[in-house]
């Protein structure tokens, strides 16, 4: 009985999602398998594409980790010929390093602008361009209305947008993005106690996800793919359990 009840709930959930406009995307199956246990956090167990994900970072170190995590996602999203546009002011990215994450740096187009207004305009224009796979924007100040605009642009073209916001912790305005992440570095994952740094490892905090379950994971990058491991239940989850209990 219990099993069948769970099945009914799952079915109803997926029906609701379908009614809310969440579609199963074709191209993202490799991404879903690559994300490991992280994929359970998303609605329909599918990484949402054609929307904007927001990443918070408060230091150069966490900015590097964020870039790497996004790089891994872009790698799985873009397939053989996807093109990524990178919009920023004061870019610190080292293009050859993208190759370490299985990406092709020549398929990145970097747009370096100075004014904040131009950044938002360029992001909006790029998100409307259907020929792109992903658009990454390093924009610090985005108001709720502006994030709504970006979200509307992306819904037409089905491009996946990543917004990196270098801001101080706890000083972030609400936004219309589908998720909010924070990535920080963890000590590298060593192989059999060998000396050296080992594989890069991060703490991936999914702070907010529309219609999904936030959580925290330990993710390391090894052999060209993610290795995810769930760390803890978030307060949101605990609350849900309490309600059930």
């Amino acid at each position: 009985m219990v099993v069948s009840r769970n099945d009914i709930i799952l079915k109803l959930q997926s029906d609701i999602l379908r009614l809310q406009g969440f579609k199963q995307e074709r191209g993202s199956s490799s991404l879903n398998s690559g994300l490991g246990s992280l994929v359970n956090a998303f609605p329909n167990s599918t990484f949402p594409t054609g929307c904007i994900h927001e990443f918070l970072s408060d230091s150069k170190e966490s900015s590097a980790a964020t870039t790497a995590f996004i790089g891994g996602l872009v790698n799985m999203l873009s397939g053989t010929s996807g093109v990524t546009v990178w919009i920023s002011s004061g870019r610190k990215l080292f293009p050859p390093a993208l190759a370490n994450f299985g990406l092709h740096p020549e398929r990145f187009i970097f747009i370096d602008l100075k004014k904040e207004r131009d950044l938002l305009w360029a992001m909006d224009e790029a998100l409307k361009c259907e020929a792109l796979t992903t658009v990454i924007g390093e924009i610090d100040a985005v108001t709720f209305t502006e994030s709504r605009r970006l979200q509307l642009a992306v819904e037409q073209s089905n491009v996946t947008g990543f917004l990196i916001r270098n801001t101080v912790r706890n000083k972030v305005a609400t936004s219309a993005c589908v998720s909010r992440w924070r990535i920080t570095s963890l000590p590298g994952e060593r192989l059999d106690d060998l000396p050296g740094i080992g594989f890069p490892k991060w703490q991936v905090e999914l702070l907010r996800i529309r219609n999904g379950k936030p959580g925290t994971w330990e993710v390391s990058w090894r052999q060209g793919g993610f290795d995810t491991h769930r760390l803890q239940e978030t307060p949101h989850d605990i609350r849900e359990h309490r309600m059930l209990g």
Partner: protein
Amino acid sequence: MEKRFVSIWLPYLKTDLFTVRQPHLKDVPFVLRSPSRGRMLITACNVCAERSGIRTGMALADARALLPELQPLDDKPELVDKLLTRMAEWCIRFTPVVAIDPPDGLLLDASGCAHLWGGDEKYLADIVGKINSKGYQVRAAMADTVGVAWGMARFGLRQTHNNKIIVEPGRHIEALMSLPPEALRIEPEISSKLHKLGLKQVKQFIRMPRASLRKRFGIHFLMRLDMALGQEFESIEPVVPVERYQERLPCLEPITTAAGIEIALQQLLETLCLRLHNDQLGIRTAVLKCFRVDGKVEQVTIGTHRPSHYVKHLFKLFGIKLSSIEPALGIELFILEAPVVEEHLAQQEVMWEDSQGIEDPRISELIDRITGKAGNDTVHRYLPDEHYWPERSFKLAGGLTEQPSTQWLTHKIRPLQILQPPERIEVTAPIPDYPPMLFIYKNKIHNIVRADGPERIEQEWWLQQGQHRDYYRVEDETGNRYWLFRLGHYHDKTYQWFIHGFFP
């Protein structure tokens, strides 16, 4: 139909060009000079100088001895070529087939043109008069063959002061008879040989057996003779004026509204793009000029990354800038010009919808919009370069289509975020060539827990002098990873430590 040719000779072309530009030189003896084998040679002299006995080809020093007040000017041979081509294009008013005849002449195929001017006499007078009025001395001859017209213009007018001569149809062989051999356009060696033999006029050798003429003077000589006689066809290579991609739209009423300007632009773009489409060309740069009622000209310029004749895209590019046009009292004339066009083949059009990746035209349209608004230096794309030195390991790509000529290096791990330039840090290192124990960056102490390295990267001495770098990848106690390097040898005492990047 009888063929008629006009040969125009501009004997003082080079000096006349300078006189036209600087009228005060008109009555001054001056020469043009250019260096040759360590001395200055005269390449052209004007009438005044020639009267004093100065000739082309003299050394400038000799000429100065003859005429101390002689003014030497630097020769500009490239100007003359341009001028000749411009003159040839201008001469298209007389006949559709005009060729330049270097170094100082023009050839006109006047077959069936002269009657429009009321006969050969008036036709030639008009040509000579018009060129003369522009300040160039000219001699022109008209004949049935190119060879005779050429020869008559240069050698038939020697004695007379007349500057034009007409050889009646069918009488060109007669005219040729009294010309010197060099009038046949033959090599100077052969004409001097003929002079040595006492053959100073064409009539003296024209009846000689062809076989012996060929044996002594070569096949080329006979060919020139046949051309002059009209027995061999001679083709001339006409100048084709460059067709400008320009569209005009005059307005009945002055236009003052943005909507009006947009309609005008749309119309102009449609006609221009249709023309470009038929010629398989695409716009790289386009200018919209708006001529206002008060005499001012407003203009906006756009550029594209790859040639395009796609109206919608070009309109969007202009759309970003249209707001900068001030119509004031109204615009009465729009001119759309495409100064830079490039080949744009139809097969690219087919790929419009299904091409993928970086080749997709929609991406270049996006880039055009962004550079159109924010400037050209905003969009970058990088390709691998074969250098280990981090700053040189990548290079700026020339455009969206340039493909990498080499692989990206993946066997060395590089930081994702880089500091440009590297920043100095304080370091405590235990023993030579060991990774440091701690470093201080921005007043914060980072205790190093684990490290990889060193990876030595040498300077490429053929590009830049300096010391090598020993790179370490280090991780501090919080799990953040950094790229540090020591510049120079540990033992040299002059080494410095830097932080260069952040690993994920």
